[in-house]
């Protein structure tokens, strides 16, 4: 579905390139995680996919077409919920559809469907300040879902949450992925989170990087938290931490 072909990119203020002739691909419907040290370029990959930055060399393709030629191919969910405090939950969720000029009735229908799906239907007319951190992240996810894209880019969406809420949200996200069949790219610092959620974990090791090491997680879906205690998973976790420290 997504393909980076020999992409090179450097921020204007940086002395060296962040990525050089970078190649990377993701298949439709996969859940993949990208891990790496802070500042290694994980979020830059998302900014390039989003079109917020443009590569100096190479191209990014979605289903074989350059991203410049297509619209609404990806939806981004940032670390903070970024809900607009002046809008109700319903208006927040409908925002991407409103900008895409989706008819009002259809916006409302989709909004209520997704709110029902995530168990927050009764909060439609409330404001973000009336919700807990976990609830806000669910709403932010719902808004990302309704942006109408096949590919979701989630940039450390649970990092600001407390441990228990984070664990709940990870399990919830897996359920949502299995239900909506979207392609998910997930950035995280948490190796355990990456293993629990993804089919493949990609590691950025070099600077500048030209590729990422791809590691398959030997677990079937649906997954349970107890799966993380299995010997091969514990070993994989140790192995990933070691690779990150190199």
């Amino acid at each position, binding site marked *: 579905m997504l393909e980076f072909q020999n992409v090179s990119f450097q921020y204007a203020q940086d002395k060296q390139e962040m990525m050089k002739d970078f190649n990377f691909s993701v298949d439709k419907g996969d859940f993949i995680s990208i891990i790496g040290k802070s500042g290694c370029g994980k979020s830059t990959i998302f900014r390039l996919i*989003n079109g917020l930055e443009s590569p100096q060399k190479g191209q990014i393709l979605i289903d074989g077409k350059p991203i410049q030629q297509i619209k609404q191919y990806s*939806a981004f969910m940032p670390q903070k919920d970024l809900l*607009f*405090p002046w809008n109700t939950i319903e208006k927040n969720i409908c925002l991407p559809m409103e*900008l895409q000029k989706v008819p009002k009735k259809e916006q409302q229908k989709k909004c209520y469907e997704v709110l029902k799906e995530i168990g927050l239907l009764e909060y439609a007319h409330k404001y973000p300040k009336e919700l807990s951190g976990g609830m806000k992240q669910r709403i932010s996810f719902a808004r990302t879902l309704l942006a109408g894209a096949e590919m979701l880019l989630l940039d450390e969406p649970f990092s600001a949450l407390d441990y228990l809420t984070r664990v709940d949200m990870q399990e919830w996200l897996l359920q949502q992925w299995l239900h909506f069949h979207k392609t998910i790219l997930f950035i995280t610092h948490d190796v355990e989170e990456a293993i629990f959620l993804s089919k493949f974990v990609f590691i950025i090791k070099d600077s500048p990087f030209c590729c990422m090491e791809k590691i398959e997680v030997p677990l079937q879906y649906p997954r349970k938290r107890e799966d993380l205690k299995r010997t091969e998973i514990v070993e994989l976790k140790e192995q990933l931490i070691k690779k990150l420290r190199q």
Partner: protein
Amino acid sequence: MKKNMPALALGIFLVLLWQFIAMGIDAAYILPSPLQILVKLWQLKEILLLVHLPATMGVTFLGLLISVVLGVFLSVIMDSNKNIENALYPIIIASQTIPTTAIAPLFVLWFGYSIWSKVLVTILITFFPIAITVYDGLKSTKREMEELLITYGANKKDIFIKLKFPTALPYFFSAIKMAIPMSIIGAAIAEWLGAQSGLGYFSKRMMTQLDGAGVFAPVVLLSFVAMISVAIINMIEKKLITWRKEI
């Protein structure tokens, strides 16, 4: 209410202190007592409320209205274009170094004793806080929110309507609350310099007659109007802006 008690108590104490000092000095043309001012206010109520207050309020309202339109317009165009910002911002700042009261007589030369000389003084005093505060509000928009909207396909107009306008709205209300007393001061100063009616003009006339209480009475009335106006804006703001603390 409990929160306002210390201010109320201090206010009452200061007024009482003023009353006693004025009674001690016993020279109303130098320092009239609060009670003498209230009596004067009552005696002059008709001319103050029906003739001079409407004249001053006309100048204030017109000056404030033009300042709001001008200030908001300047802040929006500065925010939308870096070149315009670079061209206008230093001039707006420099405009504040002009001693308005010193050049106000020039406006009387240009516009005579018409309302426009006074409105111009009011605008010069008022438009600056509005332009700069609203501009700061527009600039305070979170970059990450703007980028999120761009990823949803928003254009400049969408970003303004969906994000910049609501972000700048609390700043706009702060600007208005600052501008109301300033516009009243501006109108009164302009009336001192040249007018045929208005509370500033009336206050100056009383001064020439050595009527201390008569000088203070319009000032008290102006302060009262400013306080009421700011209180009304506060109420509207509380009703409309519920997200001030969350930006």
